């Protein structure tokens, strides 16, 4: 018997094995009857029927990730807050690698969360996926709480991630200045004053004052002159005068030389 003949004789058996494998795969990986039915009902917006199916055959209908997501969607469409809240909570654990449970959680927290719940979830989300929206919300929340240490941490992360604007840099500068880290504050304020098309007076004055107080009088005057002193800005003028009067007595020759 040639190999071909032998193969032909075994062909029905091979077909049978392949068929069995396909069936096994289908049983384990394709949606079950209830899952398919759930998908169909959801597509047809037959939410009540879908809910009835879930009540009857939850385990089979929610056997896969898709089934879970469909079950949550059905409950959301029906406004069953008591049901979809815990379901999403369970999905966050069960399908921890997937994004959709997080998206549902975000929707629910945005719609129904207390302020504290919003902050807690925003922190968790920011750790997972930092976004501009999460960054600004958390910075604002920490500012509202008066928690400048945490606010400073988020600002620094936002700057590192490229999410922050110059207002955030300025704010971090004031926080670091209030904490006594003059060097960091000077660095941050310099960035604000040097790059902002119209630096805020408080930033220019704070930078000037910090530089003078930290032995950088000549550089302070140079920066102030270069970034434009406004002679009509009386409030600023007072601060400059204060700084000059208090700090520059010993440096006057240096400054004159610099100017």
């Amino acid at each position, binding site marked *: 018997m040639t190999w071909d003949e032998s193969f032909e004789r075994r062909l029905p058996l091979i077909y049978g094995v392949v068929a069995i494998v396909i069936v096994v795969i289908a049983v384990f990986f394709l949606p079950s009857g209830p899952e398919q039915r759930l998908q169909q009902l959801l597509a047809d917006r037959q939410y009540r029927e879908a809910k009835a199916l879930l009540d009857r055959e939850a385990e089979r209908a929610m056997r896969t990730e898709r089934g879970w997501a469909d079950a949550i969607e059905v409950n959301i*469409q029906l406004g069953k807050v008591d049901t979809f809240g815990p379901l999403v909570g369970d999905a966050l654990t069960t399908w921890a690698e997937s994004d959709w449970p997080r998206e549902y959680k975000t929707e629910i927290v945005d719609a129904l969360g*207390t302020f504290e719940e919003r902050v807690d979830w925003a922190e968790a989300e920011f750790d997972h996926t930092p976004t501009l929206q999460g960054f600004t919300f958390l910075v604002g929340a920490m*500012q*509202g709480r*008066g928690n400048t240490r945490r606010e400073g941490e988020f600002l620094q992360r936002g700057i590192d991630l490229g999410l922050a604007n110059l207002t955030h840099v300025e*704010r971090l500068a004031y926080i670091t200045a209030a904490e006594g880290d003059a060097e960091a504050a000077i660095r941050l304020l310099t960035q604000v004053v040097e790059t902002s098309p119209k630096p805020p007076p*408080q930033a220019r004055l704070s930078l000037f004052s910090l530089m003078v107080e930290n032995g950088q009088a000549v550089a302070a005057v140079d920066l102030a002159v270069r970034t434009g002193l406004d002679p009509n800005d009386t409030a600023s003028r007072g*601060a400059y005068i204060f700084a000059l009067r208090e700090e520059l007595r010993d440096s006057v020759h240096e400054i004159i030389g610099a100017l």
Partner: protein
Amino acid sequence: MKKLVLSFLLVLVLTPSVAAETLKRHVLALYNGSDERSIKDTRLHLMLETPFNHLGYILDYREMSAGLPDAEALRRYAGVVSWIEADVVVEEDYFRRANEAMDAGVKWIVFGDIGASRDSRAHSEYDGFLRRLGLVDTGDYITVTYDSTYDVLNRDYFGFEAQLSDVLPGYPVFVAAGNGEETLLSVQSPRMAQSAVLAAVTEQGGYMASGFAMKFVEDLQRTLWLLDPFLYLERVMDKDPWPVPDTTTLSGRRIYFSHIDGDGWVNASQAEPGQVSAEVIQHQVIEAYPDLPVSVGLVAGDIVYDEVYAPLVERTARDIFALPQVEVASHTMTHPFLWTELVDYDRQAELDDIAARALAESQLARLDTKQKTVLGDPWRFYSANPYHVDEEIAGALAVTNRLAPAGKTVQLYLWSGDTSPGPVELAAAREAGVLNMNGGDTRLDGEYPSYTYVAPLTRTVGTERQVYAVNSNENTYTNLWRGPFYGQYLLEETWQRTGAPFRLRPMNLYYHMYAGERFGSLQALTHHLDIARSTEVAPVAASLYPRIVGGFFETRVEQRGGLSWSVRDYGHLGTLRFDGVADTTQPNYAASRGVIGHRYDQSSLYLALDTSQSTAKVVLDDAPSAVLSLRQSRWKVSGADLGQCRFSAVLQGFGRPELELWAPEGEYRFALTQAGGAVSQGTARSENGVLSIDTDITSFDPITVTVRCAELEP
């Protein structure tokens, strides 16, 4: 005998003789018209009017450039409050008049800038003005604040919704005048010799520096109070306990009401295929809760201008209006979205807007849907005819009245769209004999976590008043009806937070007819209806609320003695509230008139007034009373006759009466007589001083209740 006469004379001399004095409730509110274009945009309206209202005060707005009223007019105010942020320089005469007013007992409260110029410091009147507020102006302003630290920080007043930050905004350097002031907040800095006072209170007024009362957190896009404005204003106004007209409570219970704007009446319902939204709302929301009243506002244009659906709207409107728990209301004729454009109406401008929108829509139609931007609202939903106030109000009322069953007419006109009617529209509604309401969008929840989002009672428009709805509708909870549609579940938090730790507002379930489209919105509605059903509330028709608010503004209080007042013109306002009295304090019913009950709740004493009378005499003392009086009732109680061993009154409301009386221990007989003469009798025992009368009677008509001690003959 001689001793007796002497004792009598001594008592006469020592007894404080208080001449009848009308308590001043109006506060002059000065705003900067160049910075804040209309009253509804002012900081005073958005931030301070709510706490002032809560404390019983009425704000009268005045633009600062108009100057102060004359001395006599100024003295009629309980206080003057200004909140300006630069750009206003007041004249020397302003400070002179202010000083005279303060010396005459008018409290002066400054939020933000004083309004002084650089030259003001040279003038004695300015100096005197500041000294009366406990301040001296050094002329300095601190811009660099990284080395500023708090010197005095009274945590009773600060850290209310947001905490003060270590990073301070700039501040003017006012130092303490040593004029008996209490400094609530001050800062020190190596840049100044003395601490700068940022918040102070004196006997003559108060000062609150800019940037330290509240803060707009830009990253949150939310405003939060640093200061407790309720406590601060109460402290500055410094009034002994007095009967504050209260709009939250009726018959000892928190008021509940509900109203529907008729938008989306015939929208197809996803929740009940084959039905329109109005039918779903009728069956699943209104008819399912006959114990909870609702006022339904029809858009009359749905009948006048919509030829296709008019018959369906008419049929469903008749069905809904015929339900006994439904009050008939109007939600305009053409449904204006932009009332502000109708104040100085220009038909051609409206037609131009319609044309521009049509063009924009045709252009947008070619774009990919994701790129589409949402066009703003048109001026009106039905714009085939030019706008006219008569059609909009009287016309809408006439159309709606035709659909109402015998015995019912439109009671309430519900503003649409931007809810910013002009004085002509408000006057037209008043002249048509209906109450008006809507606007305000009050929320106090996780998304709007501040009392700054609790609107005041009304908006002043010329000489008219627009009454704000108590709570926001589902629109603001559902991203303007784009979903999630279950969003109005969050209303529960606003109900909780405006009910405790002090009762600031009633409970208002406010929604649109299109809420019947979705399961989610329906679930949110029934969730709140279930809360209202299971909570101790006094459910009323929505039109009663603006009537009560009207009573708030009209009520006049005269002090007759230390704990005695005469109260007039309260109209439908059924409750007076005393804050800061002991929980043993209660009315002396024998000496009072028009007071039918009392209840102590969350550190306030609520007195129930008999609104069938136009004046009341209130006398308080600490002695328990043997008179039967109202503790609380689900139904409104009026026409009451109180006495020892007897109580009778007329009750009207929704659901079961659920009546509780203060009554000495013992057995009582009661009888409830319905309009047709049917009598329901029973007996009940007073336990711990409270007599509960619980019956299965439900009636939409008034019933009479009589209670007697059991041992007395009937």
